[in-house]
């Protein structure tokens, strides 16, 4: 388990979010839904980010600047460097017959790479405003809704749902699509099973998202 130091290639603004592009070097992009721990300059702990896109020679992460760590990551500039550890955790199972990608807010982060891997299946994306919904441009073949319309209003029956978004959205998705693969999120210190910080209660049991997830069925 080695951290690699990588150079920032550039950043792009996507609505309120920042797409941070870094050199890939020898790093394996992993399976969609897996994540990397990114060193956040000025912070003690790295931040977990799922891979958003894997263009040639690069890894790209979609980041919402909501706290000290994410703001620090969004303010990185070309040629800055940061330590990266990953890919970590378990990604989405890709053996699905009728995939439907479902995302909410910054939870759409792993969907562009997933969409690319599954040859652009249909997607349903929900956002809290038109500004946030600009991120939908990263996911082809997407139907977009803005609150008060919810993604669960738009999920057709009998699809293999692969979803990522805030916890209430995932719980709601599970009600309409009980077999959905859901990518969860929790604060974590390490990303490799040590800290037990990312334990979430799923089906009455606490699971460490970093090693048992973040994608859980």
């Amino acid at each position, binding site marked *: *388990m*080695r*951290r690699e130091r990588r150079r920032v290639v550039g950043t792009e603004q996507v609505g309120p979010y920042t797409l941070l592009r870094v050199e890939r070097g020898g790093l394996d992009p992993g399976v969609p839904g897996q994540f990397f721990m990114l*060193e956040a300059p000025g*912070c*003690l*702990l*790295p931040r977990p980010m799922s891979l958003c896109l894997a263009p040639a020679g690069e890894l790209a992460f979609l980041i919402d600047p909501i706290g*000290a*760590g994410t703001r620090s990551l969004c303010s990185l500039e070309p040629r800055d460097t940061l*330590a990266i*550890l990953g890919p970590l955790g378990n990604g989405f199972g890709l053996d699905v017959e009728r995939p439907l990608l479902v995302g909410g807010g910054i939870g759409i982060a792993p969907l562009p790479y997933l969409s690319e891997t599954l040859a652009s299946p249909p997607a349903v994306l929900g956002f809290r405003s038109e500004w946030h919904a600009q991120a939908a441009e990263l996911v082809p073949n997407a139907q977009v809704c803005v609150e008060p319309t919810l993604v669960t209003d738009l999920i057709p029956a009998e699809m293999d749902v692969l979803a990522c978004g805030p916890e209430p959205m995932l719980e709601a998705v599970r009600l309409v699509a009980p077999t959905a693969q859901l990518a969860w999120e*929790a*604060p*974590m*210190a*390490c990303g*490799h*099973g*040590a*800290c*037990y*910080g*990312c*334990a*979430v*209660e799923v089906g009455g049991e*606490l699971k460490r998202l970093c*090693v048992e997830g973040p994608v859980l069925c």
Partner: protein
Amino acid sequence: MTGTLLNASGCLDALTAPEVARSLDAYVTKTVTPLPREGNPPVRIAETQAGMLNSIGLANPGIDRFLTRSLPQLAKLGIPLWVSVGGFEAAEYAEICSRLDDEQEVTAIELNVSCPNVEAPTESTTQIVAAARFATRKPLWAKLSPAVPDIAEVARAAHDAGADGLSLVNTIRGLKLDDRTLKPVLGTAVGGLSGPALKPVALAAVYACYRATGLPIVGMGGVWTGLDALQLIAAGARRVALGTVLFADPDAPSRIRSELAAEAAARGWSTPADAHGFAQEESLPIEATLDERSRV
């Protein structure tokens, strides 16, 4: 022995990161309790200005599953194993110690008498160490909290009750409030503070307890660099444990090991062991406490 590196209990899972565990001189398990524990409700982790708070609450599979499932796998790592033991009364510590006593793979037992995230044991450190001492021949290390009026007094009590060494320090309680809502970030509100913020606290505890007891000490608390490790050794620690830094950087053991050697060499010492106790004033007897010193 002096200068050897361990992990702080609960800061490394040797089964998910075996190569990190093998880069240490010994692996300390997450605390094991008599019964399985799910731990505390989320949110369990929060970064602070110079450290982090955790409120895990001793999540662990319990001693039965530890012995049947975890220990055989940990034994395959091929490095010395220290088992951290927790409980809510002295008899529970004793029960686990006696069950570990015949396990050849277990090198030492660390008694976690100081977890800030669960209810404190009902009995004193003396009673817990004495009960554990009666239950096992394994070396016993008492892991103490620095959040007491006089940690040297607790260290002396642990020594008198039969501890072979001290692990210093456990985390201290801290609170983080959300910047916007002003509500506690952690699910349990208060959690254990670790990381660089704890380093001066750890140094003071090691300094005082080494003077008070002369016992071997594992120093820990905010070690991020080889110089941090050397300072704990100079204060009186024989071994150094890495905690929060392992979350941020799993490669830290090899980096800190080489930095530690370089920091010692830069001061003319051939090994970090030569720095042991260097910060202590040699004119004062080791048994003297700071209070006694002030009366001199």
